């Protein structure tokens, strides 16, 4: 008996010495219970041991010193840091198109180098009963960029006055399995990453930097037939909390302008060595619900406007098929989009009148009503999760002026504007599972070179060299 007791206590002792960790201190209960059950220690000795373990845990571990609310089931801190060199060569169109010939470029060699960084960091907190909440701080206040600049013009050397963190995400979520007839449901409210399938470098039809604000819902039904699953998603996002905008006159409408997104994704996928293989097809639409009346001033400046909220009902069909080549994943992806209100949107974009409800075209405009389509297609080869993973992506992108809104497009491609066609090449290498480098080149040119002012760049080349760490 003495030998057995010594053996068990030695086991516990060596475990204590060898694993003075949070995990051991918390998980030693069953081992202590076993010692009691075997009669090697009595209940009081076991309690003393438990108390000592908890004290040791509290005094000598980081986790033990952290006091979280009893409502918290799990507290996760995560984020990433990226340092970037960026070279831009973007030439704008002239501000007005006055002839049927290609506009003269005011600054054909508009090149610049930028040395940039970003960080994104915040907690995700799991509460009881499937509720989750979280927030994320991000550098930069732009909706489509999280980059801040080193050596920003106008600041003193090494100054921090231009380095600010903003609330990038803040949300409350309910995510549960086997609810409401679905295998999984996910409801969110706040400002957060969208849940939609959106294949493309930085996302094709919503820039991945955008955190839309509003509600979203997702219902997932697994194995609806054979190995196919169905995910139905909806998003109701706020663009402006009332219709007050430039060009309106009082009384302003107390009606919010909304962004609606819906998507039904059919998928037949499986995971092998951390990579997803199979097929995903996700038809849906993106629509604006804005003011009833159009105004020229709301529509002309498509890149920077915050009030161009109508004439958008774009049907989208994203598809991706991933299979194995040379023991690596090769994804073939693409999206076709058609704006059912594209003709009207395009008409307003090309109108030179800032006041008339009826568009007035320049002679350079041609037939803007036809500009209502967009698409991308690409190849993505290799993984991006494990040390040594090399991923190469090549993509072609085409977005006609009236097909979509610049509010939602990736700001790195064609300056985030419509009326662009071109290619993207990206190469990423994982030094570790957390540290990786990416080189990406974007090239875009006007689809309609005679378009007016801000509707796309004449030409936009961007080179980005990134070094990133995520945690």
């Amino acid at each position, binding site marked *: 008996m003495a030998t057995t007791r010594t053996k068990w206590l030695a086991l516990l002792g060596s475990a204590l010495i060898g694993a003075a960790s949070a995990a051991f201190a*918390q998980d030693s209960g069953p081992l202590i219970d076993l010692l009691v059950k075997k009669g090697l220690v009595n209940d009081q000795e076991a309690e*003393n041991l*438990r108390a000592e373990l*908890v004290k040791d845990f*509290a005094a000598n571990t980081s986790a033990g010193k952290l*006091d979280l609310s009893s409502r918290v089931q799990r507290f996760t801190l995560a984020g990433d840091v990226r340092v970037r060199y960026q070279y831009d060569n973007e030439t704008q169109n002239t501000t007005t198109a006055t002839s049927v010939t290609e506009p003269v470029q005011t600054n054909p060699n508009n090149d610049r180098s930028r040395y940039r960084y970003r960080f994104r960091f915040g907690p995700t907190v799991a509460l009881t009963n499937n509720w989750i909440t979280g927030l994320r701080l991000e550098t930069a206040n732009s909706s489509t960029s999280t980059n801040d600049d080193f050596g920003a013009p106008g600041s003193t050397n090494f100054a921090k006055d231009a380095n600010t963190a903003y609330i990038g995400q803040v949300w409350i979520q309910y995510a549960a399995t086997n609810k409401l007839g679905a295998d999984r449901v996910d409801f969110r409210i706040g400002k957060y990453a969208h849940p939609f399938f959106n294949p493309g470098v930085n996302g094709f039809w919503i820039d991945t930097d955008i955190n839309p604000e509003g509600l979203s819902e997702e219902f997932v039904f697994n194995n609806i037939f054979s190995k196919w699953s169905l995910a139905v998603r909806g998003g109701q996002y706020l663009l402006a909390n009332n219709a007050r905008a430039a060009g309106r006159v009082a009384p302003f409408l107390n009606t919010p302008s909304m962004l609606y997104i819906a998507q039904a994704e059919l998928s037949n996928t499986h995971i092998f060595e951390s990579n997803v293989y199979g097929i995903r097809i996700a038809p849906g639409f993106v629509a604006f619900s804005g003011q009833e009346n159009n105004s020229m001033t709301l529509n002309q400046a498509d890149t920077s406007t915050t009030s161009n909220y109508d004439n958008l009902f774009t049907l989208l069909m994203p598809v991706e098929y991933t299979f194995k080549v040379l023991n690596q994943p090769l994804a073939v992806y693409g999206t076709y989009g058609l704006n059912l209100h594209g003709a009207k949107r395009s008409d307003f974009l090309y109108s030179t009148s800032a006041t008339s409800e009826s568009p007035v075209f320049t002679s350079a405009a041609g037939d803007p009503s036809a500009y209502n389509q967009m698409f991308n297609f690409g190849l993505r080869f290799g993984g991006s999760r494990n040390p040594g993973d090399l991923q190469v992506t090549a993509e072609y992108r085409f977005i006609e002026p009236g097909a979509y809104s610049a509010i939602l497009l990736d700001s790195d491609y064609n300056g985030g504007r419509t009326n662009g066609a071109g290619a993207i090449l990206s190469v990423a290498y994982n030094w570790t599972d957390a540290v990786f480098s990416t080189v990406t080149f974007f090239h875009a040119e006007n689809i309609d070179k005679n378009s007016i002012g801000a509707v796309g760049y004449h030409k936009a080349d961007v080179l980005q060299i990134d070094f990133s760490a995520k945690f």
Partner: protein
Amino acid sequence: MKQLPFLLAAVLATAGFVRAEKLVIKGSDTLGAKLVPQLAEEYKAKNPSTSFEIAAEGSTTGITAIIDGTAQIGMSSRRAKSTEMSGGQAKGVSLKPTIVAYDGMAVIVNAKSSVTALTKRQVKQIFTGGATDWSAVGGSPGKISVYTRNTSSGTYSDWKELAMDKLDYAPSSQKMAGNEQILSEVAKNPNGIGYVGLAYIHAEGIKVIPIDGESPSKDSVIAKKYPYARPTFYYTNGEPSGEAAKFVDFTLSDEGQKIVEKVGFVPVR
């Protein structure tokens, strides 16, 4: 000089009077409603110079009182949490548990209930809200009314851990201040269910439900067969000293443990 012995005696007597201590005991309603007052009464009969202040407002208040130094003994029906341990250590307080009795948390229903037995799984379903009608667990149809202790109660925490796999209580559950309140509500409500300590099971209007075939009793608790058995504690700041040590010793003595058993708990030996 002849008066010196008398003076000395007077000084000692005064010192003895001054030394008469008030023992402040706070914490668990499970221990503090019946057991500890009876122990205190008996102790006081032997030590008339000792007075007691007993406040039974939940285990959390007992452990907090030890950390804050507002009580010499903290009654608790649950173990101190790691955050309480670290909170104590930050103030130089070393929480020391002493097992004073065992308890079995009995599942009670209204005496008229058609339910005669439950499984651990069914109990978990009922208290987490997975089962909301008695017909789902073999009883006559009727909406289940769940009565629980309030959040400062150690029994509330222990029940979550032992009976609910640490899941949350059903949102519709009603929180009661103590065992007596749960007894009263379940006795009034034909669809009521709750849990109380062993010391409270012989009440009018309720019946105790065996769980997986085991009823809460001295034997099933000692043998660790009853699934909802647990130790109950006195917490002190380090090893108890002075009057507190004497009271702990008295509680663990044969005489004290007889009171433990008489009240309805299971003695530690």
